[in-house]
């Protein structure tokens, strides 16, 4: 089986010539090891005993009640993964590929810091050197994760260009890769970037969807009527959606960052963007008429990105997935409600998906399955400040 390089018209490899050889090498490695028993054994062992997979699905009865849902609400508990989010699924898969390609050095970009922490963790585990690029704005708002990465032995490089967020960190990571490509593997954290990255990330994250589908059938007895996930670059979303793409009766909803509302600053590339090239792939993008990439905005660093993975662009055009959005304010209130009703502090990214469920309750076919992509420990400073909760005596 070959590796998908384009999703409809989207995807491709719009990168400097210098890294084309490395992309070919990565494509070949992925093709060779993807289904190789020894690779699968090693990854499966780590996912089972190190990450804690399979993660459970959990019925959020108190949110059903609070939000007056007419159907059941199930949460796929990726927040229970080691390091606190789904990002570790991809980081471990890619670090094992890097090891087989003989690369000694790992680099990554990070927005919310979850991918950075996952990559730092996987690198520590395999004894690889690790550097993570992170926008300075994000370093402030996700301070906890900066400390975690440093404790794990990774070097965190602040990025000051642009708005100091995920887009800028990704550009800087690509520049590092262009410079050090011979001995460095770049672990992209979302389903974005030049081919074969979107396919590789979706593949390693598809375990979310594969598990969820089986768990719904086993434990609930039916497939979900609606699956909801937040979308920045879109890795947790594509991971869970891939389990249900062939089930035509399962509605799939991706929730982008509505920011201040779609009339103001936001991160809703699929709602308000147009196709263009950013970070190596052709996909929907927030841009001005001359193709200059616009700055996104979201309260959540992980969704604060003007682009989106190419497979999402294709699924949008096909109409297979509906893309909606939730504002900063809606996400923050959902964050607090989930914390207080369920005792689960969700990531601010995930809170967008929850806000969508709350605000669209009447129209959703049940049962509703939400990908609870990560936990919100990293967000307590920022959400606390926004919600007026602090640690003063």
């Amino acid at each position: 089986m070959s590796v998908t390089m384009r999703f409809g018209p989207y995807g491709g490899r719009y990168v400097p010539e210098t890294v084309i050889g490395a992309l070919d090498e990565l494509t070949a490695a992925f093709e060779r090891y993807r289904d190789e028993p020894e690779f699968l054994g090693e990854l499966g062992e780590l996912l089972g005993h190190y990450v804690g997979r399979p993660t459970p699905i959990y019925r959020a009865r108190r949110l059903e009640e609070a939000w007056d849902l007419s159907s059941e609400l199930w949460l796929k508990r990726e927040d229970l993964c080691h390091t606190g989010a789904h990002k570790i699924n991809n980081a471990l898969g890619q670090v094992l590929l890097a090891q087989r390609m003989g690369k000694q050095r790992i680099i990554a970009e990070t927005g919310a810091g979850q991918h950075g922490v996952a990559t730092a963790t996987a690198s520590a585990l395999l004894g690889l050197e690790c550097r993570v690029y992170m926008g300075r704005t994000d370093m402030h708002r996700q301070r906890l994760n900066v400390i975690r990465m440093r404790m794990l032995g990774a070097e965190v490089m602040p990025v000051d260009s642009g708005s100091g967020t995920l887009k800028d960190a990704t550009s800087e990571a690509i520049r590092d890769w262009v410079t050090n490509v011979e001995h460095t593997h770049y672990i992209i954290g979302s389903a974005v970037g030049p081919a074969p990255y979107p396919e590789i990330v979706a593949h390693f994250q598809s375990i979310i969807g594969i598990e969820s589908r089986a768990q719904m059938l086993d434990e609930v007895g039916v497939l979900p009527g609606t699956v909801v996930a937040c979308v920045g670059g879109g890795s947790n979303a594509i991971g869970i959606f891939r389990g249900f793409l062939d089930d035509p009766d399962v509605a799939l909803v991706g929730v982008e960052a509505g920011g201040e509302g779609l009339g103001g600053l936001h991160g809703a590339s699929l709602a308000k963007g147009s196709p263009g090239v950013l970070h190596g792939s052709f996909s929907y993008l927030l841009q001005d008429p001359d193709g200059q990439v616009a700055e996104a905005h979201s309260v959540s660093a992980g969704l604060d990105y003007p682009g989106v993975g190419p497979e999402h662009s294709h699924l949008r055009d096909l109409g297979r997935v509906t893309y909606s959005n939730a504002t900063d304010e809606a996400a923050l209130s959902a964050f607090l409600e989930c914390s207080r009703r369920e005792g689960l502090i969700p990531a601010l990214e995930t809170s967008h998906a929850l806000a969508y469920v709350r605000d669209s309750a009447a129209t959703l076919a049940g049962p509703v399955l939400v990908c609870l992509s990560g936990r919100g420990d990293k967000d307590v400073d920022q959400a606390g400040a926004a919600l007026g909760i602090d640690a003063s005596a």
Partner: protein
Amino acid sequence: MSIRLAPRWALTPVPESGAERLARTFRDADRPLFVPYVMGGYPDLESSARHAAILAEHADIIELGIPFSDPLADGPTIQAAGQVALDAGVRPWDVLAIAEGLKGGPPVVVMTYFNTVIAHGASDFLGRAADAGVAGIIIPDLPVDEAGDIRTAARASGVALIALAAPTTDDARMQEIGEQSEGFVYLVAVTGVTGGEMTMDDRLRSLVDRARRHIPVPVVVGFGVRTPEQAREIGDIADGVVIASEIIRRIGDAPDPAAADAMVEQFGAGISAALRA
């Protein structure tokens, strides 16, 4: 039925294409070519137009950069220069206007990222570039295997699509790049982004040698060339030399516009002399 006018080519001689013009430039010079880079709109539009005009007196080809928000192949110097231009509201057409002002001088090639080319439609962009007299276009994030449609549009507009090759490009791919590229091939001297520093060593010599063996069109080397000595060393083994970040850096260091102009004149003359020596 509409009345058809005779097409323009039936009335006037076929104009020379950008690729032909570039080929003639290499053919006519019996020395390595000097290709300086100017970022359109840095430090401001008027200054960049003036710097390009000054350099045109010494250069064989002028490379004009169009500022882009996310220049993946560029190091900090060109990134920052592009940001200055964008912050001042410089648009691609403003840079094409600089090219237009250079008509009658050495051929102009435009360096632009792919999203700029497709934002208004590739045919539109290339048509406007051709109207401005642009001979060629360099798109650092468009490898040859993604270039199909653009190549067709570029040929139709008479703008040469100049491909890049890198130290990591293998022989078979060098061959492919050589076959696809029009005008010349831009050989990246270092594994990295613009603005580093090249060192003339066996590795670089063998890279240039390998490129020239597999690439039928002229090979121009850039990335990290800073001094007349380095230009001459490259000139000894390649068909031309691009100097970019170093010029931008020196413009940025100049205390005032007059000093910047004088520096550009002196630097351009120095490199040109080194390549003629």
